[in-house]
């Protein structure tokens, strides 16, 4: 399982990376390599040129703004897992990162790579879609920003410009009072999930629910944000959660394959989404009766 021959460049700047991309329509970005290198070895990926962005300083930045945490494309998953800014301000991502791959793949895999690769069961992509993160690409001289909840359109398919390089993913900072929940199931722990769900409930300063974010992954062709805004007018009781989730998932065409049936994915996706919401709710209201 040896790759086809290709060229390799290691640009020092984002501009140079984009220039290389634009010059060769068969060039591909190499970030952590944990998804791309196996595809190269199986000859499923057949680029003429790999552009290694690991040495572009601005891509490893992790910055805090008033409302967002901006994670550079090359921030390694293992680094993100331990980062205090992420732990404090994007607790849902911190939780989801524990489920990503194995320690050796988290050491090399990147936040940006996971988003750009867009595997339907990618946990980072799911959180991004759920929270409506902003995905920034540099395409030639242009900066293009996508909202994550519309970015993923199919299995390994996104709106990313073919000549673009992912620069950073900006996640909204959670409110001070926030509850999160994340669940996934797989035949073995850390396998590609058969179903996954991410939930976040934000409370305002006055203790009312200001936003409910819910997303499911692995069950369809891409991770999706689910609209459960109807819950904002409820007290988040179990029956209401169940009804809202069931409704929201109804339209998803779940995948049927060797590892799980379509009905399994729908059933378990629903169950996990409800559990994730419940976890989020319970962690907020643990001091009072739920």
């Amino acid at each position, binding site marked *: *399982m*040896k*790759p*086809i*021959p290709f060229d390799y460049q290691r640009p020092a700047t984002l501009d140079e990376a984009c220039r290389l991309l634009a010059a060769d329509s068969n060039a591909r970005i190499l970030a952590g390599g944990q998804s791309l290198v196996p595809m190269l070895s*199986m*000859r499923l990926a057949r680029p003429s040129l790999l552009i290694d962005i690991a040495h572009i300083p601005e891509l490893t930045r992790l910055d805090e703004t008033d409302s967002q945490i901006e994670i550079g494309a090359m921030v390694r998953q293992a680094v993100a897992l331990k980062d205090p800014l992420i732990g404090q301000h994007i607790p849902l991502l911190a939780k989801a990162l524990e489920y990503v791959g194995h320690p050796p793949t988290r050491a090399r895999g990147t936040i940006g790579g996971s988003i750009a690769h867009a595997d339907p069961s990618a946990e980072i992509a799911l959180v991004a879609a759920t929270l409506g993160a902003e995905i920034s690409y540099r395409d030639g001289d242009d900066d293009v920003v996508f909202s994550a909840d519309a970015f993923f359109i199919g299995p390994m398919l996104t709106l990313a410009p073919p000549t673009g390089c992912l620069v950073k993913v900006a996640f909204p900072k959670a409110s001070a009072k926030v509850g999160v929940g994340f669940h996934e*199931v797989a*035949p*073995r*722990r*850390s*396998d*590609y999930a*058969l179903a996954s769900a991410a939930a976040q409930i934000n409370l305002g300063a006055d203790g009312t629910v200001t936003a409910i974010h819910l997303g499911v992954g692995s069950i369809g062709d891409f991770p999706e944000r689910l609209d459960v805004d109807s819950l904002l007018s409820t007290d988040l009781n179990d029956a209401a959660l169940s009804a809202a989730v069931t409704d929201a998932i109804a339209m998803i065409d779940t995948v049927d394959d*060797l*590892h*799980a*049936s379509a*009905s*399994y994915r729908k*059933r*378990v996706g629903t*169950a996990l989404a409800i559990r994730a919401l419940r976890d989020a709710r319970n962690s907020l209201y643990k001091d009072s009766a739920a």
Partner: protein
Amino acid sequence: MAEKTYKFLSQPRRPVEDRRFVAGRGHYVADLERPGMLHIAPLASYYPAAIINNIDVSPALAMPGVIDVVTGSELAAAIQPLMNGLDTPAVRRFPLAVDRVRYAGEWVCAVIAESRAIAEDALETIIVDVTPQPFVLDAEEALLPTSPPVHPDHGSNVLLDKKFVWGTVDEDFAAADHSLSFSVTWGRNATVPIETFGVIAEWNGWDQILDIWASVQMPKYSDQIARCLGLAGNAVRVHYDVDVGGSYGVKRGIKHATLVGYIARKLGRPVRLIEDRLENMRAGDAHGPERKFDVTVAFDEDGTIKSMKMRALDNAGAYAGRAPFQLGKPIGAIVGPYQINSVAYHAISVTSNKTTQEAVRGFGQAPTNYALETALDRVATYLKKDRLAVRQHNLIRADQFPYLIPSGSTYDSGDYHTVIDKVLAEADYSALLAERDRLREEGMMAGIGIAACLEPSGGNSSFEPLLNEANRTSTWMESCQVNIDALGMVIARIHTTSSGQGHETLVSTILGEVLEIEPSDIRVTRPNSLESLPGNSPVGSRMAIMLGGAAARAGEKLKTKLIAIAAHALGVAADTLVYQGGDVVAPDGRRHSWQDAVELAHRQFHNLPDGMDPGLAAFDIMQVPTGDALPVGGKVQMYPCYSFEFHLVLVAFDPVIGRPEIRSYTVGHDCGTVINPAIVSGMTYGGIAHGIGAALLEEFAYDANGQLMTQSFLDYLMPSSHEVPAIKIVKHCTPSPHTVFGQKGSGESGYLGAPAAISGAINDAVAALGVSFEKLPIRMSAISDAIAEKTL
């Protein structure tokens, strides 16, 4: 029976092999570099069945770095087909497809290049022109005369269709109170080692020797290579000092070695083929049994199982391989550990357009045990009796050994009830039941699984003449050579590769015990096949018995010589002397030391007894105990020694998620006298891990187009450290009367009973819903779907 205490046997001792492996200094085939070595990449076909019209290799030959391309037609003209164990001469198998493609992924040609990468580049340029043909994937369909035969010249897809009736089956069925029938299917899976198969061949035209280094676990390897290539037997030199990265039965490698050997001779340069994982999964020696059992049992109201009818239909894949014989070996334990009076067994092996099956750990015993234990559970459920009690009622009792089973094998020894009692005590069976019920009250599905199984050990190929009357082979031997050198150090030679079973440790421990010297001072070597005495490799859980036996007997011969030398030197009769820690002591206390004997044997011929040869060397070639007859009337003694295992597991799962979690795993294991405790327990733990995979995760699954869906480890899922729980092993020892130390085999332990136990546990969990799973692996999706269907 009091257990004997040994000085070295059964004592904790570090396996000697471990040192080189923890340092990364194993000697695996892919580690070897021969000067000028070339690399092979095989081209995989696409269609499950097709006629090959033309293969245009010219673009590949034109690529820089490509040396040659070999096709099936070239091979077929130059070599003999691979040996067939059955009398099916029209089922011809070559390492490359000849005229037809018979399974998706079959190798149609081989590119030889300066590097593997270049060879793979060249593969992409080759144009194969085929006409797709009708194909058959399902075994029942393959049985039908209307199904397209995989080998048209053979006329049908039936490789083997043999019926046996042992005992008074019809009468027992007529007299029994009840009968029930069921079907279960063992899905296609195997033990898939982490190292793929690899082989290097190098032809030396000056010495006229073909050297072979291979990651192989196969008896008669050099013989079969020689026969296929038309070489003299002593022109093939297989190097046994290659470390094998796991095999558990599968690495036969005969098609690879034949291909690579042919190419090495043709090109006059060393060549290697190291399967990559895709090649291995799709076309290598990788697949195992795929078997459907239809079982009917006749039993009385008190739970006594009188008789059993079993039809076992196995899907061999596109060629015969070892698959048909994996239907034969279980005949040696066809009633399991139970007193079933009569059996009718119908064994059918069919070809299909799937990858060829090879041997897998247990050689068909694990699937058969799965069917047997399902029968026990079904009988208990039918009679509304406890599943454990029904087993205890039917188990052969300790006072009944040696026990002759209907198919002609005698079980040597055992005490099944005691092993079970020990397990129940260790696991606290009533607490386990209470825990199961508590989990159920919490809304979880929970079940207990039980399996009582035998591990036939010692090997014996008597299933071959049993299934093929033209085969008259009864010899199944193993050998060991031992030399005490001029400085008094012991060197032993074993004549086989090993794949983690610790044979060097086995032999040095046993020799140390016999000669009463420190085992770590003994060096064990593995020569090549030209320097070896006959052996049959570590198959059939045989080495503790056979290699251990040969080593012990060779050691005894040396000890006898040492005593005789001392007797002559001391001037006393040999039978008055005591052998003590390597020295020989006379009644009056005079001591003739080990070094004294070495001095005389190596340097003072004039002081040796008359007629004694110099030196201190011995060898032993041993036939398998009880292996002295061919089958008669469809009955034969199969393996000599029978180890026993009893599995007790608690499994729980969320009814919606459906993922089984093993909450408790206790296994009782009796393999007679244990040579090395850590090696034996390691086998059991590893076997259980294989069993967890077979029960829950692993399958070589095909789609309707005949394509293998599980071509890589992304889809063929094997248990990780999260899926194998902590396991408690409870030991017992009923020595075998057939072996020097009472040792039995343990190489297949755990694997033979774990799938049955886990399946039983899941079925116990869902029984109340009227759900039952009858096919392995039992995936979480199937569990959840079945429960959802019943609870709607």
